[in-house]
């Protein structure tokens, strides 16, 4: 258990050093048991539609990708590293302007060389996803 805590702390530290995640203002708020969660605050510079103030879909992609990679690293097999092979995102609705944005990912299957991930993006409303994603990632051993 102590080991898992150490690992979570190391992962958190690693993800805090990712320059793009820092630039977005994203934080790793959950890590462990093949799952990871990232959250960030709404920011005016990241708006995609100035008429509504809705955050751009590209930001959602970045959160999905990061949480997906983190979920792979949180798998009990403990890969040494990972990279995205493919990521497909379905956009259900616009994220509410001003609301926090979160991405939760789960690595639901891992082979020797490939990890499969699903993820969901949420704003303040837990019941209605902003977007869902599925991805495949490399597994470095």
């Amino acid at each position, binding site marked *: 258990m102590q080991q898992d805590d150490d690992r979570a702390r190391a992962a958190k530290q690693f993800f805090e050093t990712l320059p793009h995640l820092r630039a977005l203002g994203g934080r790793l708020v959950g890590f462990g048991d093949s799952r990871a969660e990232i959250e960030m605050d709404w920011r005016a510079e990241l708006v995609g539609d*100035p008429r509504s103030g809705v955050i751009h879909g*590209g930001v959602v992609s970045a959160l999905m990708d990061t949480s997906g990679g983190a979920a792979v690293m949180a798998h009990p097999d403990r890969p040494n590293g990972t*990279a995205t*092979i493919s990521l*497909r995102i379905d956009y259900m609705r616009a994220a509410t302007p001003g609301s926090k944005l979160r991405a939760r990912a789960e690595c639901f299957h891992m082979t020797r060389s490939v990890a499969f991930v699903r993820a969901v993006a949420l704003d303040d409303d837990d019941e209605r996803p902003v977007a869902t994603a599925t991805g495949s990632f490399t597994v470095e051993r």
Partner: protein
Amino acid sequence: MSGRNEPLERIKSRRDAAVAAIVAGVPYVAWLGICFDRRGDELTAVLPFSDKLIGNPVLPAIHGGVTAAFLEIAATVELTWASIWDEVESGRMTPDASVPSPGPRLAKTIDFSVDYLRSGLPRDSYARARVVRLGRRYSSVQVEAWQDNRARPFAMANGHFLMPQGG
């Protein structure tokens, strides 16, 4: 009205103004530093490298999310450009980026699927999109991004878009 005898400079400035108006109102495009290079109706999205685009600082490599966002922006701008081209050419639409009114509405992404082919190096990136189907309600776009070699794309994507309704 566009015609054979319309002064070339006027044609060019009208087209460039149209491209600028599409992008001008989108803060996130400016935040990433993306600009567009136009040759006739062909658009190339350009993403100059900067440190804040880095995902993995050890390699270093461009963040996969940045790559996805870059492809998605290239795709939506190309789609909007393709959908207003006739109106811009005929002179029915005269977008002006210097007027602080929002530009043409961008299409909404329904889904977007990215293939990561190799890691994005700490260099400038380029992308070109192709509208596979331009519909009244739904459109389909393919897009490819490269860095040093056009023949060696580092990422590609296809996406489906819901077209803006009612102007």
